[in-house]
Structures are given as C-alpha cells and as structure tokens.
C-alpha cells in the first residue's frame, strides 16, 4: 500500500498505522508520542499529541478527513495523503496540546530524575511555545510509595495510561489503575496496596515523564552525568538484557534497553533492576547507542561533534525574536535612560 506523509511516499503493509509508517521514514517525520507505546496493546489515542491532518483518505475515496486524526491509531489506506509537520493546523493544535499537558505539570525539571530523557521535555521543546498564558494554581498531590522500590509523583503525571496497560498486560492481578475523573484523576493502586510482583519495575521505564521513579536511583545523579552501557546476565525470570548506567565506576541505575523511540525492547525483572548493581554481576556488551543530539551524549564524545537537530537550531534562532521581559535587564534600561538625560 502506498502512503504519502509530508510529501514522502512509501510502501507499507496493510494494517500499518500512520505512526508506524512515519517512523519508517525517520524521526523528523514521526509525530510525537506521549501515550502510544508499541509493545503495549491498546495504548495510544489519549494524549492527542500525534494528531495529523489526512488530506486524502484513500485512492478510492480521496475526500479529506474532517477532523485531525490520531496517527497512532489510524490505519493507512492505499493512496492516503497525510500532513504532519507541513500543516499549520496540526502544529497549532500541537502547541495547544503542549500547553494543556503543561497546565498542571510542575516545572520542576531541575530536581526531576527524568530530566534529560523526558518525552514531555522533548515534546514541549519541539512543539510548544516559550511563554505561558496561565495564571491558575496547579493541581497538586502528595508523592506516594507504590511498594518498596517505586515512588509515584502524581503532580508530574500526564495520565498517558502506559503504566496501567503495563501492569495489566505483563503482570498478574489487577492492582494498578486510575481513580477519580478529569484533571483530578490520579494513578493509584487498589486502595493504597503496594504493587508486589517481579515485573512491577517496568512501569518506571514506560513512564514518559518523571511520575514513576526508581527509589534506588532517586536524586543520585543527572542523566547526562551517567554513561549507559549495554549488558546482560543469566536471569531465570527475564531475558537479562539491560542497560547499565555508570557514574564513574559505580552502577547507579539499571533499565531495560530502549529503542530509538524510547520504547523498551524487552521487559526486565525487578531483581535485575533493583538488586544487581555490581559490575561483577553483569557481562558488558558494549556502549549504548545514543543519538548525537541527545543530552545524554553531551560532554562525552567532544562538544564539536554534537550537531543540533533542526528543531533545536530553529528554536535557538527564534529565541531572540521573542520579546521576553526576562531578557531585558533593569540595569540596561536605567543606563539608556541616563544616556538620554
């Protein structure tokens, strides 16, 4: 089947979604995904970050679709024409989505463990606006412990439901879900129960923001100061294929291996994640491939090698154009005034 996304035509199999087709082209074309997670069934459609414009439904019926459609759920038809980054309506809507997601999100990136590998940071950097229009107080929640190793910061949660699907699909017994409605909805375990099974740690990996944190890693380091290394071990519960995060000679964190889109390739067990933190327990496979413009690769391989991606360079260029009060020093104003006198 033929599909055209942002004027690039490619052949895909039947049943492919627009998101999967766009990902085949590359990260410049792929719509952002805050809730869609390919390994999890039924995920997607919630954040509305991947809304795209379909200007022609199919070869047979070339009418445009009346509304923007979620790329993660809409299957491509033969001859479909999709506009993603070249459509102003889509970009405007995405600006709105970023604004909505950040509305009740505390901007505590400086103390958040996820900073540097946060999907919401990337999303708002690439698609958001630099000023805020809200004067309202944010909804707040208290951090809660989900079992001995996981802490939930509901303030940061964007209700993508990824952890709910993870808990439903890879672990037994349904204890993890959403309570309440609307913007006071919260992720919770069944009446404050701990999540107690061998694969519960994976909900940390799937979280796109810093809402679910690893208590063995909290506040130990910033992501960009640690160095990821692929490793494996013989584990009777899981595949044992992990990424070790080193700070100096010390393993400070163990996560699953993630692909280009931040999706876990194989879920790992809690023993690997929380208990095996000595180099001697692992066989090192080699360094993890990190995209060059990721902040994780910064300061490691020579600064001049890092080429900013297009949206980043554009954002840097546009930044000066924005009339931001914070740019104007109160001193410069005074000097100008005095010069006038």
């Amino acid at each position: 089947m033929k599909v055209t996304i942002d004027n690039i035509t490619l052949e895909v199999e039947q049943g492919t979604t627009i998101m999967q087709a766009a990902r085949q082209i590359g990260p410049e074309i792929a719509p952002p995904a805050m809730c869609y997670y390919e390994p999890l069934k039924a995920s997607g459609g919630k954040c509305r970050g991947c809304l795209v414009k379909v200007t022609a439904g199919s070869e047979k019926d070339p009418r445009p679709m009346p509304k923007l459609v979620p790329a993660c759920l809409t299957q491509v038809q033969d001859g479909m024409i999709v506009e993603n980054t070249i459509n102003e309506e889509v970009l405007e809507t995405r600006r709105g989505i970023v604004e909505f997601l950040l509305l009740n999100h505390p901007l505590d990136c400086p103390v958040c463990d996820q900073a540097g590998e946060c999907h919401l940071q990337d999303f708002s950097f690439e698609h958001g606006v630099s000023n805020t229009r809200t004067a309202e107080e944010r909804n707040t929640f208290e951090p809660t412990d989900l079992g001995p190793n996981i802490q939930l910061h509901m303030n940061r949660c964007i209700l993508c439901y990824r952890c709910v699907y993870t808990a439903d699909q890879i672990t037994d017994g349904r204890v993890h879900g959403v309570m309440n409605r609307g913007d006071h909805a919260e992720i919770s375990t069944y009446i404050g129960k701990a999540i107690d099974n061998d694969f519960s740690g994976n909900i940390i990996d799937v979280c796109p923001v810093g809402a679910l944190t690893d208590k063995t890693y909290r506040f130990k380091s910033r992501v960009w100061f640690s160095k990821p290394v692929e490793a494996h071990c013989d584990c009777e519960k899981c595949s044992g294929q992990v990424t070790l995060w080193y700070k100096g000679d010390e393993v400070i964190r163990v996560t699953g291996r993630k692909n280009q889109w931040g999706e876990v390739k194989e879920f790992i067990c809690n023993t690997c994640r929380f208990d095996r933190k000595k180099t001697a327990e692992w066989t090192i496979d080699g360094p993890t491939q990190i995209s060059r413009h990721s902040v994780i690769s910064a300061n490691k391989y020579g600064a001049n090698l890092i080429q900013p991606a297009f949206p980043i360079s554009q954002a840097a260029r546009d930044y000066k154009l924005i009339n931001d009060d914070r740019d104007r020093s109160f001193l410069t104003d005074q000097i100008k005034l005095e010069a006038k006198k």
Partner: protein
Amino acid sequence: MKILTEHIDVPGIETIDVFCKHGGYQAVEKAIKKMTPDEVTEEVKKSGLRGRGGAGFPVGMKWSFLAKPEGVPRYLVCNADESEPGTFKDHYLMWKSPHTLIEGMIVSSFALGANTSYIYVRGELMYVIHILEKAIQEAYDKGYLGKNILGSGYDLDLYIQPGGGAYICGEETALLESLEGKRGNPRIKPPFPAVKGVWQCPTVVNNVESIAATSWIINHGGEAYAAIGVGRSTGTKLISASGHIRKPGVYEIPLGITVEDFIYSDEWCGGIRDGHKLKAVVAGGSSVPILSAEMILNTVDGEKRLMTYESLSDGGFATGTMLGSGGFIVMDETTCIVHNTLTFARFYHHESCGQCSPCREGTGWMDKVIYRIEHGKGRKEDIDLLVDVAKKIEGNTICPLGDAAAWPVAAAIRHFRDEFEWHIEHPELAIQPGAVYMRPGASWAQ
C-alpha cells in the same frame, strides 16, 4: 398532536392492565405476529425518526448499519443516562409511563434480532429504576418478555443497569464500558458499536424517546409519523422547558412549531415570568450554543425560527444552535451570562473523564478562568484566551464531551462578549450579589 404522552396523565398508566386498555402492547402483537424484522426496520426508516439523544442521526439508518455476522449475538442498549443539564424528558416518560419504553424496547429488539437488551438508567433515578423493574416483571408475567413471546419463537430478556452517576456514561461507548462493569471511559472509534459494542458484539445504542416512538410508528405506519413535522424533522419531540417561564415542564410538541409560539403561547411555556423579558435561550441542553433573544426567535434571513433540527441550526454556530436533546432553558433579563457560563464550565470540568488531555486540562482551565472573571479578578486577555482554549479542545478529543464543553463557552463569548468585558472592566460592580450587566438601552420591563 401527542404520541408518547397521549395517555400519560391517566391514573394507573404505570400498570400493565391500564396501559393495555389504552392501546398498549398492540405494536408488539402486530410486529411479532404479522411482520418480519426487516419490515419493522423499513417502517422506522420510512418514518424519518431521528435520534432524540442529541445528535439527531436517523434511527432506521443506524439500525441498518448494525453488523449481522452469523452466530454472534446482537444487543440493543437503551440510553437512559439522561444527565445533560436542562434535560429531564426521559426521566418524566419512564417515571410516568414505563410501559411505553418497554413496548418500544420489545419492538426495536425484534427488529434488530437482539435476544438480550439493556436499559442503562442513570443511577440517581433509583425510584424510576424500581418502577421500571416492576413494569418489566408485569410484562414477563403477561408473556410479552421471556421465552417464546406470543408463541412466535422469539425470545427476549430485558435487563436494567443503574449507572454509577457520571455524565460521561451517557456517551454511547462509555456507556457500554460502564455496562460491562469497567471504568466509564469512552472507547476509541472505530470500531463503532454497530460492529463491536457491548461484550465486543454488534450493538445499537438508542435514546429512550427514540425507542419509545417506534411502537407508535408500528401501530400507525411510518408515513403517518412522517406526516407530522417539517422536512427531515419528522414526528413529535419531548421538550424539557425550564428557566424563567410561566409554565416549566415537559411538553410534547410536533416538530415545526415556531420558537416564538413555544415560548409565548399558553399551550406550551406560557411566556416569560411577569414583568420580565426574554434575554437568552439555550435550546437543546447545556452543551449547545446559547443564543440571544433576537437570534433564537428569528434566523438571519428574518424568517421565524422553527423548533426543528434544521431551523435551529440555521446559520451554523455563527447565528444558530442545535435542537440537541431538547433541554430548553429560557433566561430573562436578570440572568448573568458569565455566571451561567461558569455553571456550565464547572459542570464539564467535574464530569470530564480525564482520558484525553485537551478535555481533561482544557475544561479545568476554562472553569478556573471564568471563575476569576466572575469573581472580579479577570484580565483583559482572558476572553481571547477562553476563545482559543475552546477552539483547541473542540474536535481534538476522543468523544464529544470536549465539544460539548467548548461550545457553550465559545457561544457565550460570541454573543455576549460585552458582558464578559464589563465583568473585567468593572470588577467592583461585578462581584456584587446578583449583579447583571445591562446593555445600553436595555430595560427590565417588558
């Protein structure tokens, strides 16, 4: 012309004996004994009956979209989760005359080939649920429900499911989730309920009033029903009239009377309460755009606006509104539109399910901004902010609740922008209890 409420004031109509004495259950006899399911569907198609829940989609068409794979059961679900502010017609019908609904359910289920049907009733209406359950038991005893109805070999079981008290469960896919015992989150469409509905089987979800009207259509024929009304708006409609009118209540009107008639004639609302005059009308339940007095009475072309689907939406959202579910809220000069919009925005903020981000965050944001304006803390840019937020919610959500939340706010600003501006410019006056902005030249007296 009365169809659904013809015998509603007869004492004892809630019992099956009195109901049968007034022509009840004849449609069941006629449909099951003399007609095939396809003939029933055809008759409903001919009648031009449109969904009475709000969207106005033709019922017969919806029925014919139902997937009919071999060996898979089909279901009919009656949406009695009427929770739209301003709408109380289904409540009235089920409470006064439960058998009207049950008769329609049997006829409709027969047409769709459903052997199990559900009535999903709003949880707050517990006493109505008791009335319905009693009525269903009577129908079982008389042989209109159960195995082998009237010796025809057709089986039907009818169940009642009380809702848990959420507005969102009136959305058809959220209703099905709730019916299955899950959290009432709307499903992502497609697949539509006609293909994969309750228990992943083909399902039709219809409003109480649509289903109740089918039995009259079977009795009198589709053409007789289509003869009432104007154009594509056929038949009668229950309107729940509320607000500053002399005679609030539920009225059954033939579609096609003028709005002016409906508000001022003694047969219906009886005019605005003494000494006041009409300011604004919300014509179809809280989620449709509000219109000012001039706009609701006449269209832009200067014609009198009629109580029909087409005439009320004449001019699009720029100058029109929608018939919706028929919750007709009338407001006189003493109503503060900002306060009214705040009430609606607060409702949608409370009822958003929280699944998709534009609705979850946007409804809360609009509520908070309007709250500030109403309480004298508005900023000049807030009005444009509200318009922009409403625009970004509309059409970008999983289910229509996002649209329903955005429309009233956008329309209130579109038609009553001066009132919002007054609240921002004169906070000291706006925070006075009962303060209402008067347009220059407007007066309280009629």
